């Protein structure tokens, strides 16, 4: 596997501009001759499909939901970063770049991150022009707030529903193109394989989830905008349908998978309440602007929070990280919560929780101000827990939220398969080992609106004027379709005893225990033994009822869990091979005497890229060395 990141020459601030000049263009009359398939309709997919449609390409967009408006980007709450420096507090493109590289614990690619920071401002302009109702000050101008890992206020927001408003903006732009006929939208359609011939993407195999029909679709380029794989843990803040299938099947067709072990555990989620739990709910990081995190100083203190006097409370983030305090980055805040709970100072029935307390903010600013800032989040909290957060502190605990790892892409966002692009959370390039808050929306939209539509033209133009699209009658399509049909039939004919969910839950437990917030060599080795055993049991004993020829949600789930059962092992292998702690990847063997993550820049300043070999063989680990030419490698400190 050859890994050429294709980073343009020149100083970092000129790379993107130079690259845009160097790339080939497709002339307006020729654009409609090219067909591009986009899988997924979240921020990255919808914005890419809309922009490609506006440019005049012939786009087919697929999503598994009943409408493109439902993709899980919609659940993002807190905000989107941009280097506008409207508050005049010292922000700049360079500072956003710097914060993002540092926040990612020096495991991202500098050139990509700089481009992201550079584009951030255009995203805000474009979204405002679409009618996205961002929060405003009384003077009518846009409001900003601060977020974790930054000392400037650069986060634009729309109450606690920023993801919803940005996604609806992209969805409306996409709808406009659907009406114009440039984009053909296929809802309730799930991609089950990418068709590759001569290491070049030729199209996809899709299952129509309503009729069960397996369809082939040919294209000149394929774009995966299929999100993250947090649901490998069963419980996460992801939507129920989020899955790794598209990315994993592309991996099995030759796309390198980078840093699968980099998972973000978000510090502020509502704690698990019982065995029945189907998903976890995030409480936006923005709450840490006004909420103070604490636990009792005494072990096993069972008093109610308001009975614990001030001097018996440990505001541990403020104590350990005085300059960032409650706004320490997510990985650090999560690990600190785990630490105090492991010590036996956790709160709530399970002892797996810490307080997020608004008492001081309410007495300083009044309940009305707090309600205006976070009202919908407070309501959501009360609905789920039946506790009033205006009167009692919230109880929170870390939960799986985002995955920084993903399919490897070069500077053009192309994977190791020619003509297969990967955008948004599904790729790996911008967040390193830890993503900062309010950066996911920024990256999804940067990729979809501004990067991909430029870089894909260079590839399409290079195909040449005599380029012929591979027809779906070609053997590559026939074989791929056959393989998908055969898997569907196999799943329906096992007729075993265990439900799909029972396997998913068991996998989730293995992953959370061994590849969660803290990882050890022995734990990972155990997981690498247990997962194949579970996988084998799945293929011998799973029970999938119903038929293949209509809406069958068990069958859909079974296919996704089958992929998670392979992918989980890959994650553990990656976590085992990375003998250091970096960002969201914490290996207990590698920590400082104060319990902070200890990087090993000599041996691991690289992205690990996994190449699939065969089902019964270990994958091969390749490296892309990461050069830090602009920001000096340093120990990350938020003290």
């Amino acid at each position, binding site marked *: 596997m050859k890994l050429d990141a294709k980073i343009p020459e020149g100083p970092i601030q000129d790379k993107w501009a130079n690259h845009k000049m160097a790339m080939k263009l497709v002339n307006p009359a020729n654009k409609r001759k090219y067909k591009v398939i986009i899988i997924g309709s979240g921020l990255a997919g919808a*914005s890419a499909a809309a*922009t490609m449609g*506006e440019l005049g390409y012939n786009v087919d967009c697929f999503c598994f*939901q*009943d*409408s*493109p*408006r*439902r993709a*899980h980007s*919609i*659940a993002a709450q807190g905000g989107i970063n941009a280097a*506008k420096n409207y508050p005049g507090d010292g922000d700049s493109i360079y500072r956003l770049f710097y914060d993002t590289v540092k926040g990612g614990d020096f495991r991202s690619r500098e050139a990509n991150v700089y481009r992201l920071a550079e584009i951030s401002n*255009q995203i805000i*302009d*474009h*979204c*405002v*022009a*679409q*009618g996205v*109702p*961002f929060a*405003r000050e009384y*003077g*009518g*101008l*846009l409001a900003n707030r601060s977020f974790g890992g930054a000392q400037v206020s650069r986060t634009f927001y729309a*109450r606690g*529903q920023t*993801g*919803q408003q940005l996604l609806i903006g992209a969805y*409306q*732009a996409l*709808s*406009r193109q*659907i*009406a114009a006929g440039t984009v053909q*939208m296929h809802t309730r359609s799930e991609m089950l394989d990418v068709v590759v011939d001569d290491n070049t993407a030729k199209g996809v195999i899709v299952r129509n989830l*309503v009729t069960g029909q397996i369809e082939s679709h040919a294209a000149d380029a394929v774009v995966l905008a299929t999100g993250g794989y947090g649901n490998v843990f069963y419980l996460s803040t992801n939507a*129920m349908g989020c899955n790794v299938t598209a990315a994993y099947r592309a991996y099995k067709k030759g796309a390198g998978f980078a840093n699968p072990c980099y998972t973000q555990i978000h510090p502020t989620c509502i704690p698990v*309440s*019982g065995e*029945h*739990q*189907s998903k976890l*709910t*995030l409480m936006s990081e923005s709450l840490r602007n006004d909420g103070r995190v604490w636990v009792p100083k005494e072990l096993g203190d069972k008093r109610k929070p308001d009975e614990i006097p001030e001097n018996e409370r440990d505001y541990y983030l403020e104590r350990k990280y005085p300059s960032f305090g409650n706004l320490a980055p997510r990985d650090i805040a999560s690990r600190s919560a785990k630490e105090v709970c492991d010590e036996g100072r956790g709160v709530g029935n399970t002892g797996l929780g810490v307080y997020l307390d608004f008492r001081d903010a309410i007495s300083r600013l009044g309940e009305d101000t707090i309600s205006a800032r976070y009202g919908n989040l407070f309501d*959501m909290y009360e609905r*789920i827990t*039946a506790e009033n957060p205006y009167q009692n502190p919230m109880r929170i605990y870390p939960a799986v939220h985002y995955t920084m790892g993903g399919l490897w892409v070069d500077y053009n966002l192309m994977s190791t398969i020619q003509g297969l692009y990967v955008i948004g959370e599904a790729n790996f390039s911008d967040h390193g080992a830890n993503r900062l808050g309010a950066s996911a929306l920024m990256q999804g939209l940067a990729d979809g*609106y501004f990067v991909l539509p430029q870089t894909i033209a260079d590839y399409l133009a290079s195909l040449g004027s005599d380029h012929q699209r591979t027809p779906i009658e070609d053997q590559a399509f026939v074989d791929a379709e056959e393989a998908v049909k055969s898997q569907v039939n196999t799943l329906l004919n096992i007729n075993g005893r265990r*439900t799909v969910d029972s396997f998913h839950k068991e996998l989730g437990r293995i992953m959370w225990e061994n590849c969660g917030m803290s990882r050890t060599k022995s734990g990972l080795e155990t997981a690498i033994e247990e997962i194949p055993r579970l996988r084998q049991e799945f293929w011998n004993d799973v*029970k999938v*009822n*119903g038929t293949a020829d209509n*809406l*069958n*949600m*068990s069958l859909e789930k079974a296919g996704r869990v089958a992929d998670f059962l392979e992918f989980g092992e890959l994650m553990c292998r990656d976590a085992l091979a990375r003998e250091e702690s970096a960002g969201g990847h914490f290996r207990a063997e590698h920590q400082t005497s104060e319990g902070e993550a200890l990087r090993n820049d000599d041996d691991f300043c690289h992205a690990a890229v996994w190449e699939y070999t065969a089902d019964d063989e270990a994958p091969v680990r390749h490296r892309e060395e990461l050069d830090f030419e602009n920001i000096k490698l340093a120990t990350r400190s938020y003290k």
Partner: protein
Amino acid sequence: MATYKVKIWRQSGPNANGHMERHIVKGIDGDMSFLEMLDHLNEDLEEQGKEPVAFDHDCREGICGACSLVINGQAHGPETTTTCQLHMRSFEEHNVSEIDIEPFRATAFPIIKDCVVDRSGFDRVIQSGGFVSVNTGNAPDANANAIPKPEADTAFDAAACIGCGACVAACKNASAMLFVSAKVSHLAHLPQGDAERRERVHSMVNTMDKEGFGSCTNYGECEAACPKSISTDNIATLNREFIRSKVGPTT
């Protein structure tokens, strides 16, 4: 732990006859969400080798708008929230132990299977004009236009619609006026939406009619059922926009 007598709609396909099917669901904790209760039922059905009940759901945080059940006669059940954010304690506290579950019913929302309906009519309404025609890359600076905070807040309140369709399911006429008006009102309150406001309201109302949604007779049931409390004031805004587009000045 409580036990519930559940009657739920089963229909094997779009053209099949449907019926209510009875189940006893045991071991339900008040902290479980309504959909977790259904997961529990489905897990039982699967273990018995039967097909689970199909229902739409995804984010389970009350924001994606996928979940869509009529529970004891009310769209999204007894509280002002989405089905996924309804918890079983809500039934426990009111000693309700019988639960009837049906799909959102409307001519414009044909049933696909069991409790899953086709709401793509909403997408087509948006496609007919629920957007600002601005291509990527040609926007002015975001702060070029100051928008008074009250206007921005009103636009936001309308933009909070999640497109779930509860308004249609709750309406005696299966009207989509609340949904359509929320988008018209969102964009009408912002300078960015101004250039196309005449065409937009016309086109969206025409599409709404074509899709088979009914007329509005001011019942107000839509607002009561809306999990995001979208106000019927938006319907007044839509009517004003509609008339204005016919008789008002052209600029």
